[in-house]
């Protein structure tokens, strides 16, 4: 029954059904005052119900006179938009290469790995790199850092910001033509810290609350270009007896984050932990939060040890090939591995 699918409250639905209105077409020719009389409700309520019904029938495509389904975009328009897509550099050229230029805006990227591999380091690096001025090839935006584990170290953020300023000055020295424009814009390392909004989240309720609040916050701070959540897993990994509830909450969160990424054209980066899983006869490492969560993100990057080196592997992406590249964590932040040989390996 089509009436069941309308976004109205249960009692209104009940009244409609008991008055005999089971399909949307039966409501289409009714005026609000007639409906109000029939159901014994106020005119305003009747108007609301009819609005919901006409919205519903439009989505079904029974409107007839509409050539394009409401809310859709053609693939060509999307292609044109994608060319304008911006990326946030990770400061490691190899990693940027396999990511197609850097972390994509408009998308949700999940990055996971064992403890100590460099997830928080990458998060802090991105929070600093998003602020690189447009004249120097960056986005000139601000960052939101949502810390659920308490692993954000202010001293480290300062170190990385200082190294970023150094790099910008060096880069400027080499490319003389844009010298003046860039020079004016190079900020002090403390300014970098002033543009990172830090939230400390202590329970899963607060995590859901902040994700709900993001839309309002970002509309007030329009230059935020990256939202980093470190880590998305921590509060969902313990105390949860009701796994079904956990899955529902996680999928709700994933949808809201995707909406925020698309609405404000920013990058959402989620850091995840690992767990072991038994499959194909042996145990493997895999990212935490289960199989249903693994569908939630657009892109998935796994950071792992290969011998003595740190590697990043693109596990899932709609547009990037599966590839891995080395990176290193230095005093300056995330950088290329020191050696010169070609190392990107395609899977």
């Amino acid at each position, binding site marked *: 029954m089509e009436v069941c699918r309308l976004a109205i409250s249960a009692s209104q639905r009940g009244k409609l059904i008991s008055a005999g209105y089971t399909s949307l077409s039966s409501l289409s020719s009714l005026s609000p005052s007639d409906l109000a009389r029939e159901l014994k409700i106020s005119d305003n309520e009747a108007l609301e119900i009819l609005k919901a019904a006409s919205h519903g029938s439009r989505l079904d495509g029974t409107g007839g006179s509409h050539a394009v389904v409401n809310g859709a975009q053609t693939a060509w328009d999307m292609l044109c938009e994608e060319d304008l897509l911006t990326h946030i550099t990770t400061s490691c050229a190899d990693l940027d290469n396999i990511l197609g230029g850097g972390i994509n805006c408009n998308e949700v990227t999940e990055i996971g790995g064992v403890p*100590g591999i460099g997830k928080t380091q990458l998060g802090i690096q991105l929070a600093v790199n998003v602020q690189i001025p447009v004249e120097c090839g960056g986005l000139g935006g601000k960052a939101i850092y949502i810390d659920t584990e308490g692993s954000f170290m202010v001293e480290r953020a300062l*170190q990385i910001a200082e190294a970023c300023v150094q790099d910008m000055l060096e880069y400027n020295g080499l490319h003389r033509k844009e010298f003046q424009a860039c020079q004016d814009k190079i900020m002090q390392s403390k300014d970098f810290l002033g543009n990172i909004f*830090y939230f400390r989240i*202590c329970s899963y309720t607060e995590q859901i609350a902040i994700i709900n609040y993001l839309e309002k916050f970002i509309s007030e701070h329009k230059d935020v270009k990256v939202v980093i959540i470190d880590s998305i897993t921590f509060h969902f990994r313990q105390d949860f007896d009701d796994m079904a509830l956990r899955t529902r909450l996680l999928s709700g969160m994933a949808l809201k984050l995707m909406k925020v990424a698309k609405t404000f054209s920013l990058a959402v980066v989620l850091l995840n932990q690992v767990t072991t899983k038994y499959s194909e006869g042996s145990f493997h490492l895999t990212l935490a939060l289960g199989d249903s969560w693994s569908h939630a993100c657009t892109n998935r990057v796994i950071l792992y040890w290969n011998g003595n080196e740190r590697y990043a592997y693109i596990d899932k992406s709609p547009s990037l090939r*599966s590839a891995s590249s080395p990176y290193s964590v230095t005093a300056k932040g995330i950088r290329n591995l020191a050696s010169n040989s070609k190392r990107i390996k395609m899977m």
Partner: protein
Amino acid sequence: MANKLISEMGLPKSIANVFVARNLLTAKDVLSLTEFDLMELLDVGLATVTSTVSHISEISCPPYQTVLSLLEQRIQNEYLAGHLPTRLKGLDAALCGGIPFGALTELVGPSGIGKTQFCLKLALLASLPTIYGGLDSRVIYIDVESKFNSRRMIEIGVNSFPEIFHIEGMAQEMAGRILVLRPASLAEFTERLQQIKVSLLQRQIKLLIIDSMAALVSREHEEGPPRHHQLGWHISFIKSLAEFSRIPVVVTNQVRSQSSDETSRYSFQVGSKVEYIEDPARSDSHLVAALGIHWAHAVTIRLVLDSKLGKRFIKVAKSPMSPPLAFCFDITSSGISLLNDNGIEMTGPQINTINYQGHSDIIRSAIKGYGDQSE
């Protein structure tokens, strides 16, 4: 924040009453339901639900701060911008000043390596007056395995800070600031933790040491919930304790043998001959830190103490702000001392491995040197 009452959030009366009628009293109750569940339960339209949920979310969300203001706050209010120096120069330099406030620092290593010695020294350091580089505060030492030895602690004090301890009555005052608790069971430990939270601010306690966390769990090892769930609540609680009171928390952990179902490979790594390089360190050591991977993610700083080729090392295995350095150390009458302040930089995951070679020689020579020293 999660337990904020809906009734105090300034919602319109009609909605607030509906929430109470449906027994949704706190922010946690409401935010655990999806929007459709709420519509069903409260019998209101989608628009109302959306605006109410966003209002509740905004109020339950903790306030933000810019990182710059965090930095300035710490420089202004805290001792050395939030660090407790360990007096081991190389280690303090690697940790940007010392054991950080507001975070969980873990010491893990095989038995007899020196974890308790390190803890005794830290407890002493925190109790010293600030002019001598301490925090001038009380210390809580939760001693699960009954390893706390006051005589040894005074010995460390007398040998490291002779100028203080030879003053009349100082030893008594310093030792008087260290409160030792000996919980007999996990339940008692839980209770104590909650009491500590209450008295933290009133009683000027600025360091919490738990020696050792793993012993609490292994004691309760009968039937019951699986091991990794047992400490879940405690981990979050201790972390929040550390952060809200901005104190350092040091926890020691034991080691155990690796079991056959452990792995460090992802499914995409298996079978690819091009990438796979044999991990040399793995074959040497069959020891891993106890308490599992959730605990490993939860600690902020992990210091691994182990021994290789007859020498003891303290390795900065996990730290968001330090390079992976290993320092060679020795246990002396004044606690722990580094043999070389320039650490050895270790590459790769071997900084995480726990070696146990040549250890019996160390124990034997230690015993020769210190008589009935127990560690």
